[in-house]
């Protein structure tokens, strides 16, 4: 039984069309050839571009919130139970409407039906909260129930509509639950690790060789998210690293004292094993996203290594990591280029597939930020009083403008 609203063939055709557009952009096929592909792969669904999708999502969500808010405001004095019923009604209405839009209007990732589903999900949870409010339950129980509800509803949305972010919401909600159980930190991490590993193994079993391409891609994305989630659970120094960006201090807590020694060092070993496994598995199974995730978490391992070993951090540590990355990238590039047809084991450094040009990229934005960051890093720069006293932070100095 297929619970999904879209057939496998429709999804397969959409996946082919997406790839065909990339091939056209990269000059691998001509416009006529693209039209020929499109002629053979009509999914019978309406799609829109990313920017219209974002606009549809934002304004549908705004509209849904305003409609629900209006009714809640009108029935404010009716009591929690009636309000819960009203909000629940809207939740059901939004779900039915989004189903209708997909079935009758044949929308696919259009933004409208997605926003309705998100609004419906929130309505369900709010309705539950309003209803449960009468029973005076403790905060912990309510938090767990809300997380479970979010997890179940978003999981069902994923199964029905195939939105990967719904699966991620479901996963995130599950990840929060162990932290609501008032368990010792060790137990929280171990339970979370076990849950994530179970889901990961389940996804591996479901990811069969004979699956369609789009399904394989979807599983790859989920496995990538799970790999990163497992890594974040295992690496005990990640919160410290994040904190470092805010207050520029080393170990905020000595984690080796909070966690038992054996667990601390097992987690240290795992911070190396998980990236290594991710990279190897990504290469072997030709899963590009898994490979990328493996490389990114490997960088995180290098960044947290000193914290694990209790070594002093120096200001030049990022530069050393940067040099390592640059050298490795150039070496890998040269190694791939030296192979027959500039390929080694199916991997190539040739720019075969060009990304879509959206006017400005994240790289351009990061470059733009660099100027400000450099100015702010100069010795003696006072950052907080920038606009208030007429000083210029752009210049980086603290003299009067």
């Amino acid at each position, binding site marked *: 039984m297929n619970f999904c609203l879209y057939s496998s063939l429709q999804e397969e055709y959409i996946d082919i069309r997406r790839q065909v557009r990339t091939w056209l952009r990269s000059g691998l096929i001509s416009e006529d050839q693209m039209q020929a592909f499109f002629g053979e792969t009509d999914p019978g669904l309406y799609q829109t571009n990313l920017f219209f999708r974002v606009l549809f999502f934002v304004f*549908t969500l705004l509209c849904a919130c305003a409609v629900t808010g*209006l009714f809640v405001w009108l029935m404010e004095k009716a009591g929690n139970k009636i309000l819960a019923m009203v909000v629940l009604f809207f939740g059901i209405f939004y779900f039915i409407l989004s189903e209708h839009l997909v079935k009758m209007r044949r929308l696919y990732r259009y933004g409208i039906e997605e926003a309705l589903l998100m609004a419906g999900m929130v309505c369900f949870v709010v309705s539950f909260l309003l209803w449960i409010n009468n029973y005076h339950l403790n905060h912990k129980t309510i938090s767990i129930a809300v997380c479970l509800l979010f997890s179940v509803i978003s999981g069902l949305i994923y199964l029905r509509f195939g939105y990967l972010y719904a699966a991620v919401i479901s996963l995130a909600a599950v990840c929060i639950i162990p932290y609501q159980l008032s368990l010792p930190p060790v137990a929280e991490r171990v339970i979370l690790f076990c849950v994530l590993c179970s889901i990961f193994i389940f996804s591996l079993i479901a990811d069969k060789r004979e699956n369609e391409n789009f399904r394989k891609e979807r599983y790859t994305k989920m496995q990538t998210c799970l790999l990163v989630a497992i890594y974040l659970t295992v690496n005990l120094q990640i919160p410290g690293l994040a904190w470092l960006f805010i207050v520029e201090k080393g170990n905020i807590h000595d984690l080796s004292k909070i966690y038992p020694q054996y667990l601390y060092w097992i987690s240290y070993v795992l911070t190396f094993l998980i990236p290594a496994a991710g990279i190897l598995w990504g290469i072997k199974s030709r899963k590009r996203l898994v490979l990328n995730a493996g490389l990114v978490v490997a960088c995180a391992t290098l960044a947290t290594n000193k914290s694990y070993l209790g070594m002093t951090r120096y200001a030049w540590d990022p530069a050393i990591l940067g040099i390592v990355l640059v050298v490795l990238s150039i070496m890998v590039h040269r190694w791939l280029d030296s192979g027959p047809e500039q390929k080694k084991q199916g991997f190539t450094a040739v720019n075969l597939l060009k990304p879509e040009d959206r006017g400005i990229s994240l*790289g351009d934005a990061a470059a733009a930020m660099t100027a400000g960051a450099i100015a702010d890093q100069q010795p003696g720069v006072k950052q907080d009083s920038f606009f208030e006293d007429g000083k210029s932070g752009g210049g980086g100095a603290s003299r009067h403008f």
Partner: protein
Amino acid sequence: MTFPGLLKKMRDEQKINAGQAGLLLDLYERRIIPVHRELRFFLYFGVLLIVAGAGLTIRQYFIHLGDIAIIASLTLCCAAAFVYCFWKGSPFSRREVTSPSIAFDYVLFFGCALFSMDIAYVEMQFHILGDGWKNYLLISFALFIFLAYRFDNRLVLSLALSTLAAWFGFSLASRRFFSFSEYYRVYAIIYALIVMGMGILTNRVAVKKHFFDIYFNFAVHFLCIALIAGVAEYKILSLYFPALLITCVGLAFYSARVRKFIYMLYAVIYGYLGVSIVAVDWIHRETFLIFAYFIVTSLLVIGFIFKMSRQFREDQ
């Protein structure tokens, strides 16, 4: 029909040749995986980390290292980067030029970032430009613009435009961007107009036309945020409101004309924000009207975008 079946059919009908079919099947079935983007990402990330590390080291240890060591090492590194770029770089062309190597763009960016750091440090320690100390940013801007055009580097162009913004008084340290005072609002508008002018000029004379989007993005954000800040302060009683409306309508038309829908996103979001600030102020304290306003206007926007999306379906 599966993709291999489809390819076979198209090959039989001679719509694609055998070489193409082989390559497309290899890409589809992941027998060939291009990792060009990943390598570029790690190179760029590495360069950013090196720049960040150098900046942190100078900030933390400038007393121990001494001025000469800092200035000499920064100068040496950026000079080496620039020499490498002039040595290896392709000749200037008015059109888009492919980088001679994967690392080339990042070497130039690295050199420019270190130059910024170097000149800022020199000025901070020795006050060479005296009261006109901010002009070192203009020097950096001029150099970066030259290098961006000479070597066709979008990253350096972004760096140049943000350096110009810093000269106008905007930087990452300014955390109150949306509520900036009249003084900075006017500067933001002037900055946006100058950047837009530069973009239009270079586009007209057909020099690196592909840079236009970067100019346009910088100009649009600075202009719209400044105008919205003005609308938030004066509501409808100023030129900010009509100026914002004209900007957003122009942006929407431009977006439809060039089929770049990111500008439609900007136009709708900034326009709606500006109109909503005025409208909510108008219907102050009338809760029912506020809800009604958001319901009606969001439905109108959805209708408008829906019409647009159907009109441009062939581009999607």
